[in-house]
């Protein structure tokens, strides 16, 4: 790269931002994208209103340090599940990127989804691309003021509703609605409501593609997951070039299929020209595919001048779906999901931790019996107050003794109790230096056990 080129690139990077006016487009991929918008936003806005058993079905109750998920309660001790879930999400992202490119960016990313809605509102109030460009250049008139104001009203209302819903995931949404109705919001509810509204408004209304270009870490490292068999959106250069239009096209013999209508550039939400090749700015929204397909159809040429393809198939080589990296990602993902499901199924509402007394190995109770002393910690991860029974197995004639009252062996949801316990065994049976025994804690039909060391009577 010559110095001259580098200078222009640096200058481009630090240029003032030029607003992009994406042209509206219809087509099969845009239909899928709209469907994704409706489904994802529908879920986001409706889920906090779901009730289950008299309480909110999904609620991340941070002040009480518990997550309600469809009737389950997760405690901070269950953090491993959240961590696993995040790792699974990351690996699915890697897997789908290796397989099908930036599906996430084009269809599912909140930035894309909310930007779609905000652009739709802009179209509703200000009209299509050309009208919007004219309107922005026109001097301020009553008409412009009216259009701009109605757009802002729509945007702000939608953003506030988004902020409200977001807070509704962390604090019971019905109470929150009530608080808003009588205008008695707590400081944190107020802060997060307006913060998230502002973030939505700014990101989807103004920053838009700049979030993808400058802020998104995924956009920077996604190329690491790509290979020549990953699905990308690409312009078929061999078929399209030499591009030409109008009179030149009619006189020239053997023109390429691209009629240079620049519609693919006009519809692009990040303002790039897909015909320049694969670029990191491309969020794979497939708007250019739909635009180009329509043009190809009108001019009587086969569709797919711009299409989902792979670098290998563009260069005439066969594409493979199963490659080492895809198989590897799939295996890791499968392992993680299996692990997560198994661990989650085996999750017990009783969490126990047993500590052996540090001072003595064992004590003599009478001439035939010895005992080991432990501190038992039980956390109730269930939904109801639980009463616990203790038992020990692994050696014959073991007995668990506690000096505390039975109401000390009772825990409310989320409560951690600590009880001193003694496990007794006949001297003749516990005659090894160390035995491994199993201590079980039961409450109703739930049971959890932990293996503990038992120090026996050995001379």
């Amino acid at each position, binding site marked *: 790269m010559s*110095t001259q080129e580098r*200078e222009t690139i*640096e*200058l481009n990077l*630090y240029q*003032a931002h030029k607003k992009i006016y994406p042209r509206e487009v219809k087509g099969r991929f845009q239909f899928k994208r709209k469907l994704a918008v409706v489904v994802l936003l529908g879920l986001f806005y409706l889920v906090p209103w779901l009730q289950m058993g008299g309480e909110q079905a999904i609620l991340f109750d*941070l*002040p*009480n*340090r518990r997550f309600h998920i469809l009737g389950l309660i997760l405690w*901070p001790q269950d*953090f491993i599940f*959240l*961590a696993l879930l995040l790792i699974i999400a990351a690996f699915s992202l890697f897997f789908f990127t290796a397989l099908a490119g930036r599906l996430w960016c084009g269809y599912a990313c909140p930035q894309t989804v909310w930007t779609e809605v905000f652009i739709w509102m802009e179209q509703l109030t200000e009209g299509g691309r050309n009208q919007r460009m004219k309107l922005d250049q026109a001097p301020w008139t009553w008409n412009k003021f009216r259009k701009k104001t109605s757009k802002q009203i729509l945007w702000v209302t939608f953003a506030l509703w988004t902020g409200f819903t977001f807070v509704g995931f962390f604090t019971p949404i019905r109470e929150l609605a009530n608080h808003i109705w009588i205008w008695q919001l*707590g400081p*944190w509810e107020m802060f997060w409501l307006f913060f998230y509204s502002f973030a939505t408004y700014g990101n989807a209304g103004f920053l838009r593609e700049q979030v993808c270009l*400058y*802020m998104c*870490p995924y956009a920077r490292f996604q190329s690491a997951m790509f290979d020549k068999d990953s699905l990308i959106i690409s312009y078929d250069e061999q078929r399209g070039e030499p591009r030409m239009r109008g009179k030149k096209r009619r006189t020239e013999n053997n023109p390429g299929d691209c009629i240079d209508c620049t519609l693919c550039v006009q519809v692009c939400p990040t303002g790039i020209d897909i015909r320049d090749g694969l670029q990191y700015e491309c969020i794979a929204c497939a708007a250019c595919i739909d635009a180009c397909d329509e043009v190809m159809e009108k001019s009587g040429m086969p569709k797919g001048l711009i299409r989902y393809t792979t670098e290998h198939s563009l260069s005439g080589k066969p594409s493979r779906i199963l490659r080492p990296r895809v198989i590897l990602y799939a295996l890791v993902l499968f392992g993680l999901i299996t692990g997560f499901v198994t661990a989650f199924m085996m999750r017990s509402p009783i969490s126990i931790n047993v500590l052996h007394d540090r001072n003595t190995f064992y004590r003599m109770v009478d001439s035939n019996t010895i005992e080991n002393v432990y501190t038992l910690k039980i956390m109730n991860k269930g939904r109801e107050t639980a009463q616990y029974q203790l038992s020990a197995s692994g050696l014959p004639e073991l007995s668990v003794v506690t000096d505390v009252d039975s109401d000390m062996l009772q825990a409310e949801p989320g409560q951690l109790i600590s009880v001193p316990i003694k496990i007794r065994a006949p001297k003749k049976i516990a005659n090894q230096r160390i035995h491994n025994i199993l201590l079980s804690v039961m409450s109703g039909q739930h049971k959890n056990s932990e293996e503990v060391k038992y120090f026996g009577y050995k001379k």
Partner: protein
Amino acid sequence: MPTQPITKNKNFNARQVKRIFVRRLGIVIWVSFLVAAVQSMVFFALFDPVYLWQLSSWHIDISYWQGYAMGFACFWAFLFAAGYVIGIVMALPRAQLAKRIGTK
């Protein structure tokens, strides 16, 4: 401007230099925000903020929201400071750069 752009191009005007600085500042703020969010999530899943404050040198009683908010703000501030200083230190001093170019 502590973090002036490293470039052979001397023709940046004051406005462009300011824009470069603001953009770099924005990057540091944004990345430290992201990392602070993740850090708060992991940290507060493992430690109870209310209990931590009671254990602290000041023995203060706070609510959960205050605990989370202060933790997040602290993480953000410190990560920002780290990023900012890294930015300054990584931008080599101009004099040294000029010498390098001169002795080609």
